[in-house]
């Protein structure tokens, strides 16, 4: 119950102001198609440098929470999901809006997002300290395998091709070795003066997530948005509250599915929303109404994608293994303040950890309140031409990267990595495992070197890294995640071949 002692910290004027700014800004950014939650959080990191770690994390956490919920606005009013997590929301949400029930859909969406989100954060509150204590048992070999696990699990589960996902992770880990070696001081892979200090995580994050989206917007050319915001008529809020409380099955399924999926590293909100929608449909006696503007579908999808947010931070805050790409960016935000997740965070910086977690709890309520009032404005912003959005994001990326160390080298690194990532993504490579490799690479290397030293003085490298129950469990999870993904990929190929044959 330590979180209660730090609850007051959230109500300090600056913290509260940042929570408001992060929530409102996140709702608007989330509603804007093409601006993903991950990119929004990455672009916000430079603004946290001059803030205290807890305050910086409040801003990033609020933006994370509300971008996911804000994506529902454009999904409902424009039929364009603001983020992949809102794909399932379009199925019933937009149909409701077309039927003149847009206000009701928005109210149901924000209310169910808040319920799912609050449950998810409560899970984060109660699971995190337990797992953080368990993390005390981890030595260098376990931490090495955990870092490898973080990269492989996202590389295999979050990518369309297992090999290309793992390859992306390798590229990230290699990029992390560029610069001077910590122990010997030797130069490694410095082929340009901009790289002499290594690759700074923040410009790399900005480049890898923002520039591909800028280029994707350019790729659409001079086309008008062609979308019209469906006008929203007034709807009494109490009726929406009554409807949400009546649909406990959909709410329960959405919240449970989102929470479980959030705990599994690498499985994103998109899957949470779709699985919850599908399960809710299966268990509903009114399954014929799904897809025709039924509130259950909307409630299940939205409660799931927000319930995922809290649990996705559990592996991050305890074991340094981010549960989602956005959580990986948050890890970068923690590391630039010199804070390492796990026992260091909860033992040495409990005020940072708990203020951040508490702010996420309060953020869920604020997101619901503001969401209901600024949905119309957010939908208008979502209509801003892509040309303006692309230019704004490019400008923010350049200024944000430069501001990290007042270095043009960082801007060059940001642009180079971003342009490279755009082309790699077109051929099946993924940004998330690359980022994970870049962030977890130094952790893996430090523990590998430390472990090798211990191993040389004691039992030998093989038995040190491959012996012991915990090492074996971690290796088994690494192998299982790869095997599962390969199996899934083969299944999909099998289905495709069968369909091709039938044609």
């Amino acid at each position, binding site marked *: 119950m330590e979180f209660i002692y730090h609850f007051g910290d959230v109500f300090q004027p600056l913290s509260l102001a940042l929570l408001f700014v992060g929530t409102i800004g996140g709702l608007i950014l989330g509603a804007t198609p093409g601006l993903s939650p991950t990119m929004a959080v990455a672009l916000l990191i430079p603004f946290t440098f001059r803030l205290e770690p807890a305050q910086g994390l409040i801003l990033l956490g609020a933006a994370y929470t509300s971008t996911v919920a804000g994506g529902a606005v454009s999904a409902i009013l424009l039929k364009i999901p603001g983020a992949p997590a809102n794909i399932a929301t379009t199925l019933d949400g937009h149909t409701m809006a077309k039927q003149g029930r847009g206000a009701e859909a928005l109210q149901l969406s924000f209310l169910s997002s808040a319920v799912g989100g609050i449950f998810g954060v409560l899970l984060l509150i109660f699971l995190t300290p337990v797992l953080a204590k368990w993390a005390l048992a981890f030595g260098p070999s376990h931490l090495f395998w955990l870092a490898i696990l973080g990269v492989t699990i996202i590389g295999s589960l979050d990518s369309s091709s297992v090999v290309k996902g793992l390859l992306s992770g390798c590229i990230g880990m290699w990029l992390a070795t560029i610069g001077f070696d910590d122990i010997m001081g030797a130069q490694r892979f410095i082929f340009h003066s901009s790289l002499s200090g290594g690759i700074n995580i923040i410009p790399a994050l900005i480049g890898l997530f923002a520039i591909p989206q800028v280029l994707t917007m350019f790729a659409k050319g001079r086309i008008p948005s062609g979308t019209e915001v469906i006008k929203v008529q007034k709807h009494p809020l109490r009726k929406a509250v009554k409807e949400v409380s009546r649909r406990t099955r959909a709410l329960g399924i959405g919240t449970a599915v989102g929470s479980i999926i959030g705990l599994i590293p690498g499985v994103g909100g998109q899957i949470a929303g779709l699985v919850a929608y599908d399960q809710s449909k299966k268990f509903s006696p009114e399954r014929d109404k799904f897809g025709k503007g039924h509130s259950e579908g909307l409630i299940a999808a939205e409660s799931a994608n927000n319930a995922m947010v809290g649990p996705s931070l559990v592996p991050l805050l305890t074991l340094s293994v981010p549960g989602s790409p956005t959580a990986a960016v948050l890890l970068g935000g923690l590391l630039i303040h010199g804070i390492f997740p796990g026992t260091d965070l909860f033992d040495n910086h409990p005020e940072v950890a708990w203020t951040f977690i508490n702010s996420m709890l309060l953020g869920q309520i604020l997101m619901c309140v503001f969401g209901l009032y600024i949905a119309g404005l957010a939908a208008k912003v979502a209509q801003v031409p892509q040309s303006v959005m692309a230019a704004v994001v*490019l400008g923010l990326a350049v200024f944000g990267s430069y501001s990290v160390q007042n270095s043009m080298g960082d801007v060059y690194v940001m*642009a180079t990595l971003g342009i490279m990532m755009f082309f790699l993504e077109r051929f099946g490579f993924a940004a998330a495992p690359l980022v994970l490799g870049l962030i977890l690479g130094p952790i893996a290397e430090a523990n590998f070197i430390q472990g090798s030293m211990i191993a040389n003085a004691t039992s030998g490298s093989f038995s040190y890294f491959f012996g012991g129950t915990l090492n074996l469990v971690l290796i088994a999870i690494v192998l299982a995640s790869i095997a599962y993904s390969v199996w899934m990929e083969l299944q999909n190929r099998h289905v495709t071949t069968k369909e091709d044959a039938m044609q």
Partner: protein
Amino acid sequence: MTKLQHIVPSGIVAGVALWVTWVSFTQQPAEAFLFPRLIASVFAVLALWTFGKAVLGKSRVGAGLSIEMMRNIAPGLIVMVIYVFWAAKGLGFYTASAIAFFILLSVYDPAPNGEARTWIRRAIITIGFVAVMYGLFALVLNVFTPKELLFN
């Protein structure tokens, strides 16, 4: 997507992987390259696997690039490269940003180019953007950008 489209990127990645492996195993001191050697070995195997699949025509993942897409991206990409790698330092951040922003709007904005109103709107948006950037980065965050033509 053509076979060649898979071969080119996977070939580049395989080339990088082989270079990383070669450097990792030949550079000294060996202790500094212990971890890179581990990574490079896996990197090379996966990259060669991907390249082999592309050469055999078994690569299927990815949307690829169409000529139309490249035609759309090209002007923006050129402006971006000039802006980032030369203009931001050469002309100064705010001047370069204003020019790049205005050019990007002019190239990609679907509004008709023949109307004066369109150009006035683009100019106003550009001025607004640069003003917000200046307020945020120069005044709030105290970021000292390279010397420039219009702002100091």
